């Protein structure tokens, strides 16, 4: 029943009462068009909406995978909005019941979807057995989508009666994170695995980088002999030993605690962390490493260690579902299940960090793990929300918070944690490269001194 019906009935009542009261036949005669209009509406009123609803998703997964990888390595746009592939939705409604004069088909797109082409609502006439197809395109932000409802509102041609049904057709769509492909990162975990790979294994063997020298043993090739050192010694010959290169266990930890969830006009900081985690996972797996993922704070937290493209797919699926969650039990890192990662592995944590996290990170380092913290800088990100120029008190507060963060970073570095402060406006690749070069030059210095000591 629409809101017009009560008004029409009131008008008819008024005409009847006035006609009877004044004995004017014209007033009673005026009821006739209204009554016939009402009668036609009652006769045409649809008994029941019986329809078959079928939804198709036109989605080229290959194209989507290509689109998920940002082509520009210097791209720092919000990962939620950039490069999202358009998904075509085709909703077919077949009338299996009686005649439906006017049906408003309204597809209710879930939150997180953005309409890019077409329309989600249409008025159609559906004779029995006929079909109508509604086509449109959407873009979806990262996440999993299962609920997709369609509302059908049928009314007869007079528009006095209407019936409405809401139906959910089976649907599943996962919009995976968009990431920028980065160059390989040369981490140095304390332990490596048995297979050949790109990471220095801290043990002598075949390889490219010089590791140490030892006395010549039968079977050593002449190419390995260190002639300069042997010339300085009368009796012994020395051979060069190179550092073995192996694959390693990499444990990625994505911080999904609500306390670190910062949203500004430029999007959510968490999305940058998700995108970076994806890029790191892809980079490490491409190099042949065994990678696992822990989404700290999430309900479905752990992806067990694995290799290859399938593992990347598992990680991407976990990242698709990852969302910041308010969990009081996991509000600090004390509950971090670090033993889930193989001992001596490389831990890479992506977190804006809280002041209390220092102790746990230092403890992880002391347990024999190599720890790399890539910390999306929350202060820069939040400054987008601030008005300019900053009031005096706010400016002091900002300086204090910056000093606190610098102090935290320094203490982390002092405890042996490799800390990378990532301003998300800068590309991750550049930041890691700078940081890597810094680490590399430090290692060169150490090696130089140790070599000098031996000589």
């Amino acid at each position, binding site marked *: 029943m629409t809101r017009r019906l009560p*008004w029409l009935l009131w008008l008819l009542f008024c005409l009847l009462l006035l006609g009877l009261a*004044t004995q004017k036949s014209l*007033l009673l*005669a*005026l009821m006739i068009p209204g009554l016939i*209009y009402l009668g036609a509406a009652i006769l045409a009123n649809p008994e029941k909406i019986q329809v078959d609803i079928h939804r198709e998703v036109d989605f080229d997964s290959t194209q989507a995978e290509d689109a998920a990888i940002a082509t520009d390595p210097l791209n720092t746009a919000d990962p939620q909005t950039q490069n999202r592939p358009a998904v075509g939705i085709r909703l077919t409604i077949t009338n299996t019941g009686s005649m439906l004069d006017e049906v408003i088909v309204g597809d209710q797109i879930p939150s997180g979807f953005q309409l890019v082409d077409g329309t989600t609502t*249409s008025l159609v*006439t559906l004779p029995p057995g006929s079909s109508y197809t509604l086509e449109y395109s959407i873009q979806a932000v990262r996440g999993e989508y299962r609920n997709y409802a369609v509302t059908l509102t049928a009314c007869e041609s007079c528009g006095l009666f209407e019936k409405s049904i809401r139906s959910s057709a089976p649907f599943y769509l996962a919009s995976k994170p968009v990431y920028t492909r980065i160059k390989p990162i040369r981490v140095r975990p304390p332990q490596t695995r048995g297979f050949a790979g790109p990471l220095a294994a801290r043990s002598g063997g075949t390889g490219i980088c010089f590791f140490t020298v030892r006395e010549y043993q039968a079977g050593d090739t002449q190419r390995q002999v260190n002639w300069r050192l042997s010339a300085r010694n009368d009796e012994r010959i020395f051979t060069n030993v190179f550092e073995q290169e192996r694959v390693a266990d990499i444990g990625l930890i994505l911080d999904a605690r609500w306390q670190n969830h910062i949203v500004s006009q430029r999007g959510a900081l968490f999305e940058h962390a998700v995108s970076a985690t994806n890029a790191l996972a892809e980079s490490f797996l491409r190099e042949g490493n065994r990678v696992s993922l822990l989404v700290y704070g999430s309900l479905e937290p752990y992806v067990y260690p694995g290799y290859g493209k399938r593992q990347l797919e598992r990680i991407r699926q976990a990242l698709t579902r990852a969302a910041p969650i308010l969990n009081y039990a996991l509000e600090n890192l004390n509950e971090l299940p670090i033993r889930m990662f193989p001992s001596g592995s490389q831990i890479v944590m992506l977190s804006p960090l809280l002041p209390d996290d220092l102790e746990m990170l230092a403890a992880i380092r002391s347990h024999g793990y190599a720890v790399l913290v890539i910390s999306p800088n929350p202060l820069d990100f939040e400054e987008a929300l601030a008005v300019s120029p900053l009031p005096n008190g706010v400016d002091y507060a900002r300086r204090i918070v910056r000093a606190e963060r610098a102090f935290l970073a320094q203490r982390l570095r002092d405890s042996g944690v490799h800390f990378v402060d990532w301003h998300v406006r800068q590309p991750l690749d550049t930041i890691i490269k700078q940081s890597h070069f810094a680490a590399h030059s430090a290692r060169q210095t150490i090696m130089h001194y140790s070599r000098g000591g031996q000589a």
Partner: protein
Amino acid sequence: MSKISLWLFSGCGVAALATGFALNRHWIEAAIVTLAAGGWLAAQLIRTPLARLAGILALSGMVILGALENMPPTLIILAWSSLLAAWDLAEFRQRLAYSLDDAMRRRTETRHLQKLLLIIGIGASGALVIASMQLTLSFGSVLLVGLLSLAALGGLSLLLAQQAKIE
């Protein structure tokens, strides 16, 4: 097509009412009808359901007033039927705004207009026939018919309200 029909029906209804009042030399009522028609047309432009309802109620009130002041029955019935059709078309155009497929839109419009013309035509003819009939009834029979009509209309209203609740 529905837009032209809406303006045609509105114009026809308002013109019939204003002419009726003018014929009876009720200039104030004719002016009020013109004003109400202006409000109704404005309501079409601003597309506010409440303004549309207010416009149609004001014009219906003027139709009843015209009937009470012995305006020619043909004009009254023409005005009332046209206004009823215009009200229907105004609501239909709201629903039609959802239709973006041109072919489907034309088909729905044509179908709706055909049905509406048929219903309004039958209603207006029936009203003209009844208005032209001369019946002499006693007070008792008028009372009986009146009570029966009230009961029927009231029963119908209750039934429809119950159906709406069940749905």
